[in-house]
């Protein structure tokens, strides 16, 4: 029977193998390889994208930090400025108040002085009147008020009472 070499079988097998080869190449391997390639591209792309995103994030982070630092510095400056301003304001207010106080004190003092002087004058006049009246009673005749007032006032000036009224 031999080894079985047979041209018809050979050709038949060749044809079926070539059909398999052709169909697999165009409808099997090609889509699979395309898919594999697409997937690896996709993965590479997304990895690159992730890398870019990470870099962007890092950049944004340093930028934010820089900004925060700048803002902090600015805030510090503002606080310092505000402190200075406050000091100035307080100083101003203080000196103003001091001036005001002084003014009030001065005015009050002047008023008091005026008052005292008026009171002293009043007292003196009344005292003189009383003295003239008393003297008239004693002498029995009416003294000339105007005439004697000067005299009394002179005497008063010399007395301790007057000195007490004058000196404070």
């Amino acid at each position, binding site marked *: *029977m*031999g*080894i*079985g*070499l*047979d041209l*018809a*079988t*050979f050709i*038949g*097998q*060749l044809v*079926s*193998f*070539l*059909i*398999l*080869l052709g*169909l*697999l*190449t165009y*409808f*099997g*391997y090609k*889509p*699979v*390889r395309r*898919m*594999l390639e*697409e*997937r690896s591209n*996709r993965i590479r792309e997304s990895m690159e994208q992730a890398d870019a995103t990470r870099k962007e994030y890092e950049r944004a982070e340093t930028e934010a930090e820089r900004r925060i630092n700048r803002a902090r510095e600015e805030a510090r400056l503002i606080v310092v400025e505000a402190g200075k301003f406050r000091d100035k304001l307080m100083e101003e207010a203080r000196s103003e108040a001091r001036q005001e106080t002084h003014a009030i004190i001065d005015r009050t003092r002047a008023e008091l002085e005026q008052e005292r002087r008026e009171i002293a004058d009043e007292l003196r006049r009344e005292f003189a009147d009383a003295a003239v009246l008393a003297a008239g009673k004693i002498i029995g005749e009416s003294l000339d008020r105007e005439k004697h007032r000067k005299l009394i006032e002179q005497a008063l000036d010399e007395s301790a009472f007057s000195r007490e009224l004058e000196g404070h």
Partner: protein
Amino acid sequence: MSRKKLLVIVGILGLGLAAVSFVGGSVGAIITGREPLSVFRVASPHVELAAGKPFPGFPVTNTMIAAWVTVLVLLVLFFIATRRMKLVPSGLQNLVEFLCETASGFMEDIAGKENERRFFPVVLTIFLFVLLNAWIGLIPGFETIRVNGVPLLRSANTDINVPLMLALVAVTAVEYWGFRARKVSYLKTFLDFGEMGQGFVQLLRGRIETGLGGILRGIIAAFVGVLEILSHLVRVVSFTFRLFGNMMAGVILTGVMIFIVPLVIPSVFYGLEAFLGLVQALIFGGLTLVFGYAAVTAAEQ
């Protein structure tokens, strides 16, 4: 511990079954002089190298039907796997992608990225065809289901026409790749008369010594070319008989083992056969790849 015990028990049971089937089988019957037990009666293996034709009048051999089954299985597999390809693969798409990627990586390692693209379809198809032919032949029913006294199915690898066909396809592809990549310089590996011609030119110019030397070297080069042709032809033969011999031997060995020890032991040989099929497919595809790479790269050492 219990796992180990279980293994031991299964092993002993298996060996017992093997021993019983051996004693009760055909060989045991000859030794003991009894009739073999009917369950263990196996037809004595008889070697038939040529493929049978189960349908008288039709030129279709059983190996051809088996090859069609292989082709159909491969086509259906790839059809289902690539019908709705998804970027995130699942099911059969995974299997097919794994196959293609592994094969592609293997070829790229050996032949480089450029050549891999060209070699891929032929090499992978040869591999898959040989592998599936071998593995399908292990399915129960092959060789045993008979129509008109002839097995209906028989592994296509065991039909000399198939290994020969594959060998011719492989070698043709190799020569084609070589010629496409290197054009005339590829033909020079077979027919190298350049030096001889130079020698004659020198001789005509009167430089007898250099001329004769050139002719001598030319003769050697031409002889090397003849050797090259022979080696390429021998590739066809070695391809053919390596696959055919291994597969045929596998079938015969399994048949003999089933005849001697009908139970347990043949399972071991089935596993061996499955491995052998993988190895033969790898060798066939791998050699095609290596020859192809050798053909496309300049042969100068």
